[in-house]
């Protein structure tokens, strides 16, 4: 689309966009800059460049946040959630998109309703129920909670990918004697696999970053996720600010790198799940 404007308008537009750019990047720049400084220099002036680069902030952050353990916990939890959401979600999305069962409408509305259900509406009985069943500090149990919370979003997004598959392919396969399972497994899944990858990325991002459920259900030292471990490390009474910023950078770096590499997928997926069509 074209909207040719005068040079003056264009200049104003770029200035305004750049101001927003600076506002967006300023806290991130502070985070990176101060992760390389000793605390005394942070107190003097958070805006100045470091007089000498302190890489030991990162080694201390790694040790104190127990990242060897907690990053692994986060990775396992994220991986489990991705597997659960993608496997159960693609089955359901297929059935709902192709209206394979009579109750597809009720199930769709039910899932839409749960996307907007507040976590507090089910958190308290769930916590005390899990406590009674001995499921606190159990990453598999938390992966199931994430799956319940994120699948409606994932299903709505996957549904659009299943809808794009031509029906003729399915009919041809059925005429050739394929079973319903083979139709799903051999015809649909390969075609919608880009959609599944997008969903995996977004669900992975959500699980990696999640705070409320992780801090409630995983409290044992050896079970903490990286984000919760960072939260505890950076609590009110700590004063090793360089180390805290270094720990923050360690957690967000893999996410940012992945995002820059695959930004189109992230953006289309996150936008597509909430705004369809």
């Amino acid at each position, binding site marked *: 689309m*074209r909207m040719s404007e005068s040079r003056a308008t*264009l200049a104003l*537009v*770029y200035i*305004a*966009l750049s101001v*927003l*750019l600076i506002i*967006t*990047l300023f*806290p*991130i720049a*502070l*985070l990176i800059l101060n992760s390389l400084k000793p605390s005394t220099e*942070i*107190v003097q002036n*958070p*805006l100045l460049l470091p007089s000498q680069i302190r890489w030991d902030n990162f080694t201390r952050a790694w040790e104190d946040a127990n990242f060897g353990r907690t990053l692994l916990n986060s990775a396992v939890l994220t991986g489990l959630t991705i597997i659960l959401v993608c496997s*159960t979600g693609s*089955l*359901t999305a297929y*059935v709902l998109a192709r209206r394979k069962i009579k109750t597809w409408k009720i199930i769709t*509305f039910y899932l839409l*309703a749960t996307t*907007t*259900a*507040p*976590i*507090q*509406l*089910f*958190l*308290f*009985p769930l*916590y*005390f*129920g899990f406590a009674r069943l001995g499921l606190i500090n159990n990453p598999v149990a938390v992966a*199931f909670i994430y*799956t319940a*919370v994120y*699948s*409606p979003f994932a299903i709505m997004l996957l549904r659009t990918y299943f809808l794009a598959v031509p029906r003729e392919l399915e009919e041809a396969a059925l005429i050739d004697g394929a079973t319903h399972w083979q139709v799903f497994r051999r015809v649909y899944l390969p075609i919608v696999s880009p959609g599944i990858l997008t969903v995996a990325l977004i669900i992975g991002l959500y699980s990696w*970053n999640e*705070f*409320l459920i992780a801090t409630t259900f995983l409290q044992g030292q050896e079970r903490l996720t990286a*984000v919760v471990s*960072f939260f505890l490390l*950076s609590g009110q009474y700590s004063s090793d*600010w360089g180390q805290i*910023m270094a720990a*923050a950078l360690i957690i*967000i770096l893999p*996410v*940012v790198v992945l*995002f*820059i590499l695959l930004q189109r997928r992230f*953006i289309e997926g996150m936008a597509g799940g*909430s*705004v*369809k069509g």
Partner: protein
Amino acid sequence: MHRLYVLPTLLINLAIIAIPAALTVFLAFFRWDGISAPVFVGLENFSRLWGDRVFWTALTNNIIWTAIFLTVPMAMGLLAATMMLVARRGSKFFQVIYFLPVIIATAITARVWQIMIYSPVTGVVGLLQRTGLDFGNPLAETSSALYGIAVVDLWHWWGFLCVIFYAALRQVPAEQIEAARVEGATFFQTIRYVLLPGIRPTITLMMIMTVIWSFLVFDFVYILTQGGPAFSSEVLSTYAYRSAFYDLAVGKAAAISVVISLFGLAATIFYIRIQAREFEQ
């Protein structure tokens, strides 16, 4: 046969969301500490909330929060998205940068703002204080704590709206815009009469989601102020959380959750009606 396909999703959803949600509604009529047997108290939890000053502060804060997020990030997102449409060159780059805060964990965003910006010791606010520009720590004042938190969430959130609006704006047919320009419409007239109506469904959907999300806001409040100072930045979700896990007043927490859900329910009905139109096709 195909019924089996939806079974895993439904079983997980029922066990984690539906059944506990029903139990929450049930618990709202009981006094329970999470351990001993619940005691039925009728409407006592609700009548106590009615006379509870903190509850009203929290509810008011949620309403203020909704008002802020229905206006400021919407306007920022729409404005930036239209400007990106005009600029064209470099719009992809701007989009990626604006989206960055969305993908950073809320716990990290909260701490970076708390330490590097708001802190009187290590933050930019402290630096300004030392040069004589004294704002005080916004998070430590009862009058400004809520707004201090809202600024952090705005920074985190507006880029999402911007990217969504930009994607929608690009779907507006070029001929409509061309026609408006040929007719002599100014830049702002084009926005007002062609672009905004063109993406109205997207704006409506985002406004409904904003209302729903505004009543769920938790992370930033919990991490930045814990609802303080003196409950001035308390919202319903943090109040419910602390009632359940700090005061072990699970019945009261359940009653607050029911109130949150009632507000969400109204918005959810709109949401489902809009989505239903799409499913009918």
